[in-house]
Protein backbone atom coordinates (compact mmCIF):
# COMPACT_ATOMS: atom_id res chain seq x y z
CA UNK A 1 0.00 0.00 0.00
CA UNK A 2 1.13 3.50 -0.74
CA UNK A 3 -0.06 6.37 1.37
CA UNK A 4 0.40 10.07 1.97
CA UNK A 5 2.85 11.08 4.63
CA UNK A 6 0.27 13.45 6.05
CA UNK A 7 -2.39 13.85 8.71
CA UNK A 8 -3.10 10.71 10.75
CA UNK A 9 -2.20 8.31 7.96
CA UNK A 10 1.35 7.40 9.12
CA UNK A 11 0.02 6.82 12.61
CA UNK A 12 -2.62 4.43 11.33
CA UNK A 13 -0.60 2.65 8.66
CA UNK A 14 2.66 2.38 10.60
CA UNK A 15 5.27 0.43 8.66
CA UNK A 16 2.64 -1.08 6.37
CA UNK A 17 2.81 1.63 3.72
CA UNK A 18 5.19 3.20 1.27
CA UNK A 19 4.82 6.90 1.98
CA UNK A 20 4.97 9.83 -0.40
CA UNK A 21 4.44 13.58 -0.37
CA UNK A 22 0.75 13.86 -1.29
CA UNK A 23 1.17 17.21 -3.03
CA UNK A 24 4.03 16.09 -5.27
CA UNK A 25 3.19 14.49 -8.61
CA UNK A 26 6.79 13.31 -8.92
CA UNK A 27 6.72 11.62 -5.53
CA UNK A 28 3.48 9.80 -6.32
CA UNK A 29 4.80 8.71 -9.71
CA UNK A 30 7.97 7.40 -8.07
CA UNK A 31 5.95 5.44 -5.52
CA UNK A 32 3.68 3.98 -8.19
CA UNK A 33 6.66 2.98 -10.32
CA UNK A 34 8.09 1.08 -7.36
CA UNK A 35 4.78 -0.70 -6.92
CA UNK A 36 4.73 -1.65 -10.56
CA UNK A 37 8.26 -3.02 -10.63
CA UNK A 38 8.99 -4.36 -7.13
CA UNK A 39 6.83 -7.39 -6.47
CA UNK A 40 8.69 -8.25 -3.28
CA UNK A 41 7.92 -4.80 -1.87
CA UNK A 42 4.22 -5.22 -2.72
CA UNK A 43 4.07 -8.61 -1.06
CA UNK A 44 5.85 -7.39 2.05
CA UNK A 45 3.56 -4.36 2.42
CA UNK A 46 0.50 -6.52 1.82
CA UNK A 47 1.52 -8.94 4.58
CA UNK A 48 2.34 -6.12 6.98
CA UNK A 49 -0.86 -4.28 6.08
CA UNK A 50 -3.13 -7.23 6.74
CA UNK A 51 -1.43 -7.84 10.08
CA UNK A 52 -1.78 -4.19 11.03
CA UNK A 53 -5.42 -4.04 9.93
CA UNK A 54 -6.21 -6.96 12.22
CA UNK A 55 -5.43 -4.68 15.16
CA UNK A 56 -8.20 -2.25 14.22
CA UNK A 57 -11.27 -4.32 15.03
CA UNK A 58 -14.61 -2.91 16.12
CA UNK A 59 -14.69 -5.40 18.99
CA UNK A 60 -11.93 -3.75 21.04
CA UNK A 61 -13.33 -0.34 20.06
CA UNK A 62 -16.74 -1.31 21.45
CA UNK A 63 -15.24 -2.42 24.75
CA UNK A 64 -13.37 0.87 25.17
CA UNK A 65 -16.44 2.88 24.16
CA UNK A 66 -18.56 1.06 26.68
CA UNK A 67 -15.97 1.84 29.32
CA UNK A 68 -16.01 5.50 28.29
CA UNK A 69 -19.76 5.85 28.71
CA UNK A 70 -20.65 7.78 31.85
CA UNK A 71 -20.94 5.46 34.86
CA UNK A 72 -24.56 6.41 35.59
CA UNK A 73 -25.51 5.39 32.08
CA UNK A 74 -23.90 1.99 32.41
CA UNK A 75 -25.17 1.12 35.86
Amino acid sequence: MGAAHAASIPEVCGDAALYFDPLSVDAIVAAMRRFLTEDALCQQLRRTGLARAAGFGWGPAAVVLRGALPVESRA
Partner: protein
Amino acid sequence: MGAGSRGAARRAARREPRMKVLQISKFFPPVMGGIESVAWELAEGLNRAGVRTDVLCSNRSPVTTREHPPGGYDVLRSASWGMFQSTSMAPAMIPQLCRLADEHEVLHVHMPDPMAAIALWAARPRGKVVVHWHSDVIRQRVALRLYQPLQQWLLGRADAVVATSQAYADASDVLRPWRQKVTVIPIGISDNHGQACNEKAAAIRQRFRQRRIIFSLGRMTYYKGFDVLIDAAAELPDDCVVLIGAKVNCSTSTGPWSPGEAWRERSICGAHQRRRAAEPFRGVRRFLLAFDRTR
Protein backbone atom coordinates in the same frame (compact mmCIF):
# COMPACT_ATOMS: atom_id res chain seq x y z
CA MET B 1 -17.70 -6.30 15.68
CA GLY B 2 -16.39 -9.83 16.11
CA ALA B 3 -18.53 -12.70 17.36
CA GLY B 4 -16.57 -13.00 20.61
CA SER B 5 -16.88 -9.37 21.51
CA ARG B 6 -20.56 -9.38 20.48
CA GLY B 7 -21.15 -12.21 22.92
CA ALA B 8 -19.34 -10.39 25.69
CA ALA B 9 -21.26 -7.20 24.94
CA ARG B 10 -24.57 -9.08 25.01
CA ARG B 11 -23.70 -10.62 28.37
CA ALA B 12 -22.73 -7.20 29.70
CA ALA B 13 -25.98 -5.73 28.38
CA ARG B 14 -28.00 -8.42 30.15
CA ARG B 15 -26.40 -7.49 33.47
CA GLU B 16 -27.23 -3.81 33.08
CA PRO B 17 -30.54 -1.99 33.01
CA ARG B 18 -31.73 -0.92 29.57
CA MET B 19 -30.33 2.30 28.28
CA LYS B 20 -31.01 3.98 24.96
CA VAL B 21 -28.37 5.71 22.91
CA LEU B 22 -28.96 8.31 20.23
CA GLN B 23 -26.26 8.67 17.58
CA ILE B 24 -26.27 12.19 16.11
CA SER B 25 -24.41 12.36 12.83
CA LYS B 26 -24.34 14.92 10.01
CA PHE B 27 -25.42 12.22 7.58
CA PHE B 28 -25.89 8.48 7.76
CA PRO B 29 -25.54 5.71 5.15
CA PRO B 30 -26.38 5.33 2.35
CA VAL B 31 -24.75 8.76 2.36
CA MET B 32 -21.13 7.68 2.55
CA GLY B 33 -18.21 9.18 4.38
CA GLY B 34 -15.85 8.35 7.20
CA ILE B 35 -18.00 9.78 9.99
CA GLU B 36 -21.13 8.24 8.50
CA SER B 37 -19.47 4.83 8.42
CA VAL B 38 -18.44 5.10 12.06
CA ALA B 39 -21.96 6.12 13.09
CA TRP B 40 -23.35 3.17 11.12
CA GLU B 41 -20.94 0.68 12.66
CA LEU B 42 -21.75 1.93 16.15
CA ALA B 43 -25.50 1.89 15.58
CA GLU B 44 -25.43 -1.61 14.12
CA GLY B 45 -22.96 -2.96 16.67
CA LEU B 46 -24.63 -1.48 19.74
CA ASN B 47 -28.05 -2.73 18.64
CA ARG B 48 -26.63 -6.20 18.01
CA ALA B 49 -25.15 -6.06 21.50
CA GLY B 50 -28.55 -5.33 22.99
CA VAL B 51 -28.08 -1.58 23.51
CA ARG B 52 -30.95 0.17 21.73
CA THR B 53 -29.35 2.85 19.57
CA ASP B 54 -31.27 5.18 17.27
CA VAL B 55 -29.92 7.75 14.82
CA LEU B 56 -30.70 11.40 14.20
CA CYS B 57 -29.06 12.91 11.14
CA SER B 58 -29.60 15.36 8.36
CA ASN B 59 -31.36 14.43 5.16
CA ARG B 60 -30.14 15.37 1.69
CA SER B 61 -33.54 16.82 0.78
CA PRO B 62 -36.02 19.25 2.37
CA VAL B 63 -38.11 16.39 3.70
CA THR B 64 -37.89 14.67 7.07
CA THR B 65 -37.92 10.90 6.79
CA ARG B 66 -37.98 8.06 9.29
CA GLU B 67 -36.52 4.65 8.48
CA HIS B 68 -36.35 1.32 10.25
CA PRO B 69 -33.22 -0.53 9.10
CA PRO B 70 -33.07 -4.32 9.51
CA GLY B 71 -31.05 -3.83 12.71
CA GLY B 72 -34.27 -2.89 14.49
CA TYR B 73 -33.64 0.77 15.22
CA ASP B 74 -34.92 4.12 13.98
CA VAL B 75 -33.12 6.55 11.69
CA LEU B 76 -34.66 10.02 11.62
CA ARG B 77 -33.34 12.21 8.82
CA SER B 78 -34.11 15.88 9.40
CA ALA B 79 -35.18 17.97 6.43
CA SER B 80 -32.27 19.96 5.05
CA TRP B 81 -32.28 23.08 2.88
CA GLY B 82 -28.81 22.46 1.54
CA MET B 83 -25.18 22.83 2.51
CA PHE B 84 -23.46 26.00 3.71
CA GLN B 85 -19.81 26.01 4.80
CA SER B 86 -19.88 22.18 4.82
CA THR B 87 -22.81 22.25 7.24
CA SER B 88 -26.19 20.80 6.38
CA MET B 89 -28.85 23.42 7.03
CA ALA B 90 -31.37 21.28 8.85
CA PRO B 91 -33.19 23.43 11.43
CA ALA B 92 -35.79 20.69 11.84
CA MET B 93 -33.12 18.81 13.77
CA ILE B 94 -33.55 21.23 16.70
CA PRO B 95 -37.15 20.36 17.73
CA GLN B 96 -36.54 16.74 16.79
CA LEU B 97 -33.53 16.50 19.08
CA CYS B 98 -35.41 18.30 21.86
CA ARG B 99 -37.99 15.51 21.70
CA LEU B 100 -35.56 12.61 21.26
CA ALA B 101 -33.22 13.83 24.01
CA ASP B 102 -35.80 12.93 26.63
CA GLU B 103 -36.14 9.42 25.23
CA HIS B 104 -32.43 8.52 25.30
CA GLU B 105 -30.03 8.29 28.22
CA VAL B 106 -26.90 8.84 26.12
CA LEU B 107 -26.54 11.29 23.25
CA HIS B 108 -23.51 10.38 21.14
CA VAL B 109 -22.74 13.22 18.76
CA HIS B 110 -20.19 13.10 15.94
CA MET B 111 -18.22 16.29 15.44
CA PRO B 112 -17.60 18.51 13.55
CA ASP B 113 -21.25 19.26 12.89
CA PRO B 114 -22.36 22.80 13.82
CA MET B 115 -26.01 21.95 13.16
CA ALA B 116 -25.93 19.13 15.72
CA ALA B 117 -24.11 21.39 18.18
CA ILE B 118 -26.83 24.04 17.83
CA ALA B 119 -29.52 21.40 18.31
CA LEU B 120 -27.83 20.07 21.44
CA TRP B 121 -27.43 23.58 22.83
CA ALA B 122 -31.13 24.22 22.26
CA ALA B 123 -32.20 20.86 23.64
CA ARG B 124 -30.16 21.20 26.88
CA PRO B 125 -30.34 17.43 27.36
CA ARG B 126 -30.56 15.92 30.82
CA GLY B 127 -28.88 12.71 29.66
CA LYS B 128 -25.20 12.05 29.22
CA VAL B 129 -23.42 13.51 26.23
CA VAL B 130 -20.57 11.73 24.41
CA VAL B 131 -18.73 13.84 21.84
CA HIS B 132 -16.97 11.80 19.15
CA TRP B 133 -14.25 14.11 17.88
CA HIS B 134 -13.35 13.19 14.30
CA SER B 135 -11.63 16.42 13.32
CA ASP B 136 -11.05 20.05 14.22
CA VAL B 137 -12.65 22.62 11.94
CA ILE B 138 -9.76 23.89 9.83
CA ARG B 139 -10.85 25.38 6.54
CA GLN B 140 -13.89 27.48 7.45
CA ARG B 141 -11.92 30.06 9.41
CA VAL B 142 -14.57 32.80 9.40
CA ALA B 143 -17.38 30.43 10.30
CA LEU B 144 -15.16 28.95 13.01
CA ARG B 145 -15.08 32.29 14.83
CA LEU B 146 -18.85 32.13 15.13
CA TYR B 147 -18.88 28.40 15.88
CA GLN B 148 -16.10 28.42 18.48
CA PRO B 149 -18.21 29.44 21.50
CA LEU B 150 -20.73 26.74 20.68
CA GLN B 151 -17.93 24.22 20.27
CA GLN B 152 -16.51 25.17 23.65
CA TRP B 153 -19.92 24.89 25.25
CA LEU B 154 -20.37 21.41 23.78
CA LEU B 155 -16.96 20.18 24.95
CA GLY B 156 -17.64 21.64 28.39
CA ARG B 157 -21.04 19.97 28.50
CA ALA B 158 -19.72 16.61 27.31
CA ASP B 159 -19.47 13.83 29.85
CA ALA B 160 -16.94 12.02 27.65
CA VAL B 161 -14.96 12.93 24.53
CA VAL B 162 -13.83 10.24 22.11
CA ALA B 163 -10.76 10.94 19.96
CA THR B 164 -9.79 8.62 17.15
CA SER B 165 -6.07 8.53 17.96
CA GLN B 166 -3.75 9.53 20.79
CA ALA B 167 -1.62 11.60 18.43
CA TYR B 168 -4.66 13.56 17.29
CA ALA B 169 -5.86 14.10 20.84
CA ASP B 170 -2.41 15.39 21.78
CA ALA B 171 -2.10 17.65 18.74
CA SER B 172 -5.56 19.22 18.80
CA ASP B 173 -5.54 22.70 20.32
CA VAL B 174 -9.29 22.45 20.77
CA LEU B 175 -9.17 19.19 22.75
CA ARG B 176 -6.20 20.09 24.91
CA PRO B 177 -8.19 21.83 27.69
CA TRP B 178 -10.51 18.83 27.92
CA ARG B 179 -7.85 16.14 28.05
CA GLN B 180 -9.23 14.63 31.25
CA LYS B 181 -12.43 13.74 29.41
CA VAL B 182 -10.76 12.22 26.36
CA THR B 183 -10.78 8.50 25.63
CA VAL B 184 -8.95 7.27 22.54
CA ILE B 185 -10.89 4.78 20.41
CA PRO B 186 -9.33 4.02 17.02
CA ILE B 187 -11.77 3.63 14.18
CA GLY B 188 -12.33 -0.04 13.46
CA ILE B 189 -11.97 -1.75 10.12
CA SER B 190 -15.13 -3.54 9.14
CA ASP B 191 -14.89 -7.09 7.89
CA ASN B 192 -18.34 -7.25 6.30
CA HIS B 193 -17.54 -6.70 2.63
CA GLY B 194 -16.96 -10.39 1.93
CA GLN B 195 -17.87 -12.39 -1.09
CA ALA B 196 -19.38 -9.63 -3.21
CA CYS B 197 -16.05 -7.83 -3.13
CA ASN B 198 -14.19 -10.91 -4.33
CA GLU B 199 -16.49 -11.23 -7.30
CA LYS B 200 -16.22 -7.57 -8.23
CA ALA B 201 -12.45 -7.60 -7.84
CA ALA B 202 -12.29 -10.63 -10.14
CA ALA B 203 -14.42 -8.77 -12.68
CA ILE B 204 -12.03 -5.82 -12.58
CA ARG B 205 -9.00 -8.04 -13.05
CA GLN B 206 -10.74 -9.69 -15.98
CA ARG B 207 -11.58 -6.35 -17.56
CA PHE B 208 -8.02 -5.05 -17.26
CA ARG B 209 -6.19 -8.34 -17.65
CA GLN B 210 -3.67 -6.81 -20.04
CA ARG B 211 -2.82 -3.96 -17.73
CA ARG B 212 -1.18 -3.49 -14.34
CA ILE B 213 -3.62 -2.00 -11.85
CA ILE B 214 -3.13 0.50 -9.07
CA PHE B 215 -6.27 1.05 -7.04
CA SER B 216 -7.11 4.10 -4.94
CA LEU B 217 -10.08 4.52 -2.71
CA GLY B 218 -11.74 7.47 -1.07
CA ARG B 219 -14.67 9.82 -1.12
CA MET B 220 -14.66 11.93 -4.27
CA THR B 221 -14.16 15.27 -2.61
CA TYR B 222 -11.75 18.13 -3.05
CA TYR B 223 -9.43 17.38 -0.17
CA LYS B 224 -8.69 13.74 -0.95
CA GLY B 225 -5.99 14.62 -3.44
CA PHE B 226 -7.33 12.73 -6.44
CA ASP B 227 -6.44 15.66 -8.68
CA VAL B 228 -2.76 15.11 -7.88
CA LEU B 229 -3.16 11.38 -8.41
CA ILE B 230 -4.76 11.91 -11.81
CA ASP B 231 -1.82 14.09 -12.86
CA ALA B 232 0.58 11.43 -11.61
CA ALA B 233 -1.29 8.67 -13.43
CA ALA B 234 -0.62 10.43 -16.70
CA GLU B 235 3.10 9.79 -16.18
CA LEU B 236 2.74 6.01 -16.02
CA PRO B 237 3.35 3.62 -18.92
CA ASP B 238 0.43 2.74 -21.17
CA ASP B 239 0.11 -0.77 -19.75
CA CYS B 240 -0.84 0.65 -16.35
CA VAL B 241 -4.13 1.91 -15.11
CA VAL B 242 -5.02 3.75 -11.94
CA LEU B 243 -8.51 2.95 -10.74
CA ILE B 244 -10.21 5.34 -8.36
CA GLY B 245 -12.97 3.75 -6.38
CA ALA B 246 -15.52 6.10 -4.91
CA LYS B 247 -19.22 6.62 -4.65
CA VAL B 248 -20.46 9.06 -7.25
CA ASN B 249 -24.01 9.71 -6.23
CA CYS B 250 -24.28 10.49 -2.55
CA SER B 251 -27.97 11.34 -2.66
CA THR B 252 -30.11 9.79 -0.01
CA SER B 253 -31.95 6.62 -0.76
CA THR B 254 -34.75 5.51 1.50
CA GLY B 255 -34.54 1.92 0.34
CA PRO B 256 -32.51 -0.89 1.83
CA TRP B 257 -28.78 -0.60 1.42
CA SER B 258 -25.63 -2.45 2.29
CA PRO B 259 -22.05 -1.30 2.82
CA GLY B 260 -21.24 -2.88 -0.52
CA GLU B 261 -23.14 -0.13 -2.25
CA ALA B 262 -20.41 2.24 -1.21
CA TRP B 263 -18.18 0.83 -3.91
CA ARG B 264 -19.94 2.51 -6.78
CA GLU B 265 -18.17 3.06 -9.99
CA ARG B 266 -16.20 6.13 -10.74
CA SER B 267 -13.51 7.23 -13.06
CA ILE B 268 -10.53 5.20 -14.11
CA CYS B 269 -7.56 7.44 -14.59
CA GLY B 270 -4.47 6.27 -16.36
CA ALA B 271 -2.12 7.58 -19.02
CA HIS B 272 -4.42 10.49 -19.88
CA GLN B 273 -7.41 8.20 -19.98
CA ARG B 274 -10.45 8.66 -17.85
CA ARG B 275 -13.15 6.05 -18.12
CA ARG B 276 -15.99 4.84 -16.01
CA ALA B 277 -15.57 1.64 -14.07
CA ALA B 278 -15.29 0.62 -10.52
CA GLU B 279 -15.22 -1.56 -7.59
CA PRO B 280 -13.71 -2.82 -4.42
CA PHE B 281 -10.10 -3.48 -3.74
CA ARG B 282 -10.00 -6.96 -2.29
CA GLY B 283 -7.34 -8.86 -4.17
CA VAL B 284 -5.79 -5.74 -5.64
CA ARG B 285 -2.02 -5.93 -5.22
CA ARG B 286 -1.17 -2.24 -5.43
CA PHE B 287 -3.17 0.20 -3.41
CA LEU B 288 -2.91 3.94 -2.88
CA LEU B 289 -4.63 5.50 0.08
CA ALA B 290 -6.41 8.80 -0.37
CA PHE B 291 -5.52 11.45 2.18
CA ASP B 292 -7.08 14.30 4.03
CA ARG B 293 -5.77 17.66 2.89
CA THR B 294 -7.65 19.57 5.57
CA ARG B 295 -5.56 18.48 8.53
